[in-house]
């Protein structure tokens, strides 16, 4: 990349981040540092920072968050890597659909996902009912799965929810791998394990790093899963509780800053250690996968591993599905009264059709923006020699670490009439532009990481060749670079789209009028219906899950078959 262009793109992205991320975040978080003076005016103070570290409860919350981040990432890696590797190396029964199916657990609708989990694992839940039935548990002394071993439970739930992020990135990296490298090592007598550690692993390291960094920050700042386990001594829950408190307490904002700085430092540090891998393998061969065909038991074992992970990870989803169909579900393995009435009522609600259209528009717009900016980021980070490119790479990860509520209220404050972002509110109060930007900023890390990993894994020789034959920079990008990193972009884009469709905080706060509600706000609205609100919300949640599941598995299955730019 030409230095001049790189500098221009660098500053343009920095400006975008400054305006649409740092400014709204500071509008809210700044309360921790800007102290009003008794006689009017303000002064800058770091007292709230000191208070965070003085209070042992906050210190413990930060430590627990860090432990959950590391453990969640490691556990996700333990699930995702073997699966991605099996899928890369072998052809086994049902591979095409199984490799697509295991992506589905990342689609868990908000609000009702927690209820679904409780229906399965609660004291009176399906699992205990099953164990009572088998006579393996005394109904007089039921086990409280959500109250005991909460840290381990949170790690497990995080891993089972987040492994698709890692799987997608590792699968994309493996798909870029030139089998000739491994074959050469094998021909030279390198045993399989040594080959794995000396050849395969270093080559896919950019993909591992891309997924692991997202999963670490996600687990480190995760709010929903600890809340399901009623575990409050963890920094993100402390921030959430503090922000919603009546006290106008500045500490949660200081704690948010600490989370942000800690995430950044961990990311920058690990980037220095792990992210320097640039495999720059030769352009990957097109055509069919190099996987070895398995038959009989080994083939079934591989399929079984995929199926087992899918079933385990889909436990909360199964809870939501059964809930949406239940006329009564109380203390039994399955609902003892089944009904489709909740679907009829929920999907017939006049909020739903516009909310589907809105969500598709908002999420697609945000994904397009995130992919465009993500490619630009990746080009500067990987294909330029700017000294500050590492800073840019780190900065784009920061939106992952800021609580959604902070960003949402930042945008809300700045879009009031007469405020700088008011132009983002369209005619009739439409939040289209606002939500596209808000969603895109928070989803940029997925795409940027995937794109960076893609470029790191591909040799620039193809692009250089295109340019030397007279192709313009735009044509090279369109015809060479994007196809080269297509699998990575598809992985990042898929994550960005799915998580934008299920976004909560911005959707609740910024989509104010009913005709602009996205699906998540429609789910939230149905949830508050007296009587069967939870079941109605579950029904719409199931609709979103099915839609996203079909879209994702369909895209993965079609892409995988074509073996071209979308090889997963």
């Amino acid at each position, binding site marked *: 990349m030409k230095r001049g262009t790189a500098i221009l793109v660098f500053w343009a992205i920095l400006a975008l981040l400054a305006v649409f991320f740092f400014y709204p975040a500071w509008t809210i978080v700044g309360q921790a540092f800007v102290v009003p003076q008794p006689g009017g005016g303000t002064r800058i103070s770091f007292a709230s920072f000191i208070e965070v570290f003085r209070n042992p409860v906050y210190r413990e919350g930060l430590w627990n968050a860090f432990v959950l981040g590391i453990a969640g990432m490691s556990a996700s890696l333990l699930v995702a890597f073997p699966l991605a590797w099996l899928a890369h190396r072998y052809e086994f029964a049902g591979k095409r659909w199984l490799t697509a199916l295991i992506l589905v657990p990342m689609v868990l609708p908000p609000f009702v996902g927690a209820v679904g989990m409780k229906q399965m694992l609660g004291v009176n839940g399906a699992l205990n009912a099953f164990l009572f039935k088998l006579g393996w548990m005394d109904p007089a002394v039921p086990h409280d799965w959500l109250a005991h071993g909460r840290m381990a439970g949170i790690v497990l739930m995080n891993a089972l929810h987040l492994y698709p992020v890692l799987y997608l990135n590792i699968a994309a990296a493996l798909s870029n791998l030139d089998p000739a490298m491994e074959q050469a090592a094998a021909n030279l007598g390198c045993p399989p394990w040594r080959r794995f550690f000396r050849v395969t692993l270093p080559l896919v390291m950019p993909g591992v790093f891309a997924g692991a960094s997202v999963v670490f920050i996600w687990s480190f700042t995760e709010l929903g899963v600890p809340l399901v386990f009623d575990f409050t001594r963890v920094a993100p829950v402390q921030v959430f*509780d503090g922000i919603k408190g009546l006290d106008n307490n500045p500490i949660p904002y200081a704690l948010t800053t600490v989370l942000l700085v800690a995430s950044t430092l961990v990311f920058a540090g690990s980037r220095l250690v792990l992210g320097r891998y640039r495999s720059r393998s030769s352009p990957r061969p097109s055509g069919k996968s190099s996987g070895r065909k398995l038959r009989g038991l080994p083939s079934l074992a591989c399929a079984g591993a995929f199926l087992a992970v899918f079933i385990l990870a889909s436990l909360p989803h199964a809870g939501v599905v059964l809930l949406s169909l239940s006329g009564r579900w109380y203390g039994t393995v399955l609902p003892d009264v089944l009904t489709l009435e909740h679907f009829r009522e929920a999907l017939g609600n006049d909020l739903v059709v516009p909310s589907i259209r809105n969500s598709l528009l908002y999420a697609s717009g945000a994904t397009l923006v995130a992919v465009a900016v993500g490619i630009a980021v990746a080009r500067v980070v990987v294909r330029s020699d700017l000294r500050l490119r590492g800073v840019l790479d780190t900065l784009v990860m920061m939106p992952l670490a800021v609580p959604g509520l902070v960003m949402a209220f930042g945008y809300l404050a700045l879009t009031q*009439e007469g405020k700088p972002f008011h132009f983002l509110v369209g005619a009739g109060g439409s939040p289209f532009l606002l939500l596209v930007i808000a969603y895109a900023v928070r989803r940029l890390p997925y795409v940027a990481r995937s794109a960076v990993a893609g470029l790191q894994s591909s040799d620039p020789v193809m692009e250089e060749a295109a340019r030397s034959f007279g192709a313009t920079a735009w044509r090279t990008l369109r015809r060479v670079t994007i196809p080269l990193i297509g699998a990575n972009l598809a992985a990042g884009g898929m994550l960005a789209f799915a998580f934008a469709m299920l976004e909560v905080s911005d959707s609740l706060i910024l989509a*104010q009028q009913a005709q602009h509600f996205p699906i998540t706000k429609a789910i939230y609205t149905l949830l508050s219906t007296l*009587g069967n609100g939870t079941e109605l919300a579950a029904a719409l949640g199931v609709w979103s899950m099915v839609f996203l599941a079909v879209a994702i598995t369909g895209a993965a299955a079609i892409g995988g078959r074509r073996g071209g730019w979308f090889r997963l």
Partner: protein
Amino acid sequence: MKRGLVIFLLLAAIVALPLLLRREAPGTGPGEVDDRIVILSPHNESIRAEFGTAFERWWKQRTGRTIYVDWRTPGGASEIRMVIDAGYKAAKETGRQGIGVDVYFGGGEPDFSEQARHGRLAPLDVFKLHPGWFGPDEAVPPSFTGERYYSSDHTWVGCCVSRFGIAYNPETLKRLGVAPPVFWDDLGNPKFAGELALSDPTKSGSVARAFELLVQEQMRRSLGHVNPDGIEAAKAVGWANGLRLIQRMSANARYFTDSASKIPRDISQGDAAAGMCIDFYGRSYQSDALTKEGAPRLVWAPANYGSTLSADPVAVLQGAPSPEIAQAFVEFCLSPEIQPLWFLKPGTPGGPERRALHRMPIRRDVYAAGIPENSTMPGENPYTGIGNLTYDRELTGHAFGTLRRLVKVMCIDSHEELKDAWLAMRDAGFPEEAMKVFSDVSFVGYEEFGHGDRELDGKDPFVSARRATELGERFRANYRRAAGIARERRAEP
């Protein structure tokens, strides 16, 4: 190609399903109406739907014009407070009057009093139009059970009344071998360890008031047996007992939540045995969540002598885009023909169309002719009900903010240590020495904290945070010590 077509058709079918099932909206769309009103509300969807439809009809009858009710629902009380704060802050900076919202509908009296203090609520015309509705002997009294039903400056007025009570799951109680709780004290029973669902007083003024009442109840008991010389000492004893009761309840708690529906849901599912629950959610679950045999999975009752009847207000915001319509909405909410909407069965004359709202109208005259048979709560007249507590502002009113913060540092922030000590003491048979340490609240006594602590509840948030850290550490040290003593006693031969 074939696979792609299948997936495309599948996606098309999924998207078509809601299109096929779509019902005609009960109201009119925003684009095709004469008038519009914007209402900010934490009320649930059922209340919004019923009141929205009823107001559209009422407005049409009154003016012959159509209206669209634009409900704004950013979340619960705390999100609404943040939205209003952000809006008025920006309005002040840009020289505007309002925030584009007409009416604030639903929440607790403390939330509305707070907004009134900031000068964000406009005086209500209904007091001039219908002066006969308001007064000590009129349909809407200025106060009842010590709770205000409208503000003295007439900027807000209650529409319905509600109270906190105790919800429990009869089957779970049976499993635990506990009698149904009747008083708040009953929730301090250690058999409830890990089984209680409590509301979070730090996020809602109404819940904070419920905790305040819990302390007041203990103070009343203490004051009931003293001569005039011992009043202050009795208050201090009652205050300490109240804090200790909150400690015990919190030690039993699974969680503190700001979601009003989470508690009855968990109780009705048997995931919690009992909890603190607002009346209308309690009644709704009691009527709808049934066992296979048709018995309620959740039973709700007001805590005996432990709760007041507080108002759920409505107000017009300053700078409302349509002030006349906003004022008319308040009049609509309080009118005698609309009030029964709160408590009649769906489909009955004057009742809601689709769902019972299970709430008590504020107008006294609605109950005067006897509770109608088609009410969802036959026989229950809040104005004659016994067992109510009367809120006494003089007792703890100045400590409202302090008490809320105390519960946070003593129980919510310290929940892990609190639960651990409680379980250790339970297993050791509650040794006296450990109990003494565990329930030491002498350093947050009534004399110092009962009238509000200037540091903890002061204006400087940093001083308040420091004070909270210090107090929290002291409580946690006590809990750790109590747990240590209990374990030592248990280990003794």
